[in-house]
């Protein structure tokens, strides 16, 4: 029977991992990811899972160790945030390039400097071209569900890519919510056993991992990664379908809220979507045709989906919780480039908000919508919500 629990997002992720019972977890503590590792370490200490845990001496080693473990055929997990993810950066690319189905939970937090421990998306955005699949949770429930689904996507034979489950630091990681968890047995069956591909520990078929790949083959291997990413939307949909059968919760590449007849569409990642939904409810009462498109998956970025959903709208407002200094904010950039090919182009506006954990309130969201209603959007102008001038 599904169980309703009042838990934090961090505990929800750890709980999913408990049910998955991975072979190896290697992690290093960093705020606000720490409780994920703490909860899991307790499961290990209590013998609730029989996972081997490696308490590494840095995030760089955490990612390095899970690369070693995953290459060996183990189901491996790590979690991090912010500068911890940045410290892993080099190996994050290697994990994807070696085609290892690692799962990593990221409690999104601002990158230094100055040092800041609160939520924004600059950590994950810095890894957007690393070759990882990026899933983005709005709340603890989604963080749990994505963690459960992640290995199925990563290990799929047409994919074989690592998955990053993003959930906003503190807001989701430390906020207590009601999360509906599924039975252990159900999760175990859903996740199933990994079909191992070229496991390093198969000594009768010795494999060389991490060869030096020059101009004669490196490009071909990158092309294979491009191809694997192309399979992800289809595979994700298949697995989401299966997951819906056991959970009743239906996921897709994007979450659509009041979108069908919406003339004004807002796009945002993560927990802010909750605040946007609340604001949309209010605006709808006032007769405004507003809606939300929330990417559940940011990498790969499913162009066709956005084109289908955005063509013919009056305006599209994109909210980014990270900046791309000297260029357009990452989510806006991605959405805007898809609009190039749609038949009927909406007006577009870019809003950066919430850097370093700055609060985003319904009135900020309303302000961005108001700009759209009055036609006051400039496609090449970046605006800021909640910033003091």
């Amino acid at each position, binding site marked *: 029977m599904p169980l309703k629990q009042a838990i934090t997002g961090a505990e929800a992720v750890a709980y999913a991992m408990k049910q998955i019972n991975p072979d190896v977890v290697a992690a290093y503590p960093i705020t606000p990811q720490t409780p994920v590792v703490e909860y899991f370490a307790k499961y290990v200490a209590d013998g609730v899972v029989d996972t081997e845990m490696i308490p590494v001496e840095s995030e760089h080693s955490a990612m390095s160790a899970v690369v070693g473990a995953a290459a060996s055929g183990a189901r491996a997990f790590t979690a991090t945030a912010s500068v911890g993810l940045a410290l892993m950066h080099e190996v994050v690319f290697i994990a994807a*390039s070696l085609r290892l189905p690692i799962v990593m939970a990221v409690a999104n937090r601002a990158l230094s400097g100055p040092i800041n421990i609160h939520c924004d998306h600059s950590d994950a955005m810095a890894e957007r071209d690393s070759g990882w699949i990026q899933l983005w949770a709005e709340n603890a429930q989604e963080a749990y569900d994505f963690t459960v689904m992640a290995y199925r996507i990563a290990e799929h034979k047409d994919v074989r890519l690592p998955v990053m489950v993003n959930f906003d630091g503190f807001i989701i990681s430390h906020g207590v919510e009601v999360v509906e968890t599924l039975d252990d047995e159900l999760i175990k069956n859903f996740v199933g056993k990994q079909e191992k*591909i070229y496991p390093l520990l198969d000594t009768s078929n010795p*494999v*060389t991992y*991490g060869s030096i790949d020059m101009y004669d*083959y490196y490009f071909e*291997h990158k092309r*294979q990664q491009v191809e694997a990413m192309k399979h992800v939307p289809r595979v994700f949909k298949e697995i989401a379908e299966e997951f819906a059968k056991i959970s009743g919760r239906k996921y897709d590449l994007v979450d659509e809220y009041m979108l069908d007849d919406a003339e004004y569409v807002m796009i945002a990642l993560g927990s802010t979507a909750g605040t946007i939904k609340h604001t949309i409810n209010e605006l709808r009462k006032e007769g405004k045709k507003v809606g939300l498109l929330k990417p559940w998956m940011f990498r790969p970025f499913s162009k066709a989906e956005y084109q289908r959903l955005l063509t013919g709208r009056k305006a599209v407002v994109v909210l980014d919780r990270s900046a791309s200094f000297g260029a357009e904010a990452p989510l806006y950039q991605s959405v805007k480039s898809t609009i190039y090919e749609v038949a009927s182009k909406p007006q577009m506006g870019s809003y950066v908000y919430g850097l370093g954990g700055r609060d985003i309130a319904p009135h900020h969201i309303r302000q961005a919508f108001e700009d759209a209603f009055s036609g006051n959007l400039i496609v090449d102008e970046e605006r800021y919500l909640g910033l003091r001038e």
Partner: protein
Amino acid sequence: MAELKGWKDIPIGGLVVEPGSAKKYQTGTWRVLRPIFQSENCINCMFCWLYCPDQSIVVELVDGKPKMKGFDYYSCKGCGLCANVCPKNIDPKTKQPVADEKKAIIMKPETDFVEE
């Protein structure tokens, strides 16, 4: 270099799934000096075999004992370490190199072997 393959025809991840495939790669062309085996002087101590960085010493078992047979010139890079560690190349009393005809391994310039 073998024929280059397209991206659909190679394993993912840059993995090399054929163990020891480097054996196909000829490093013997690098050689400047060529080791020459003078079997009559060899005591089959296997020092050359033990130290050879390229595993280019050809050994066979004769009556259960390993016998030095010569060199695999496909891989031998001609470093001369085999000749250097060969105990027969040094006079045990004077610690000086012995005359070439008494050595078990001598190094000769590759140019000596170029066919006209």
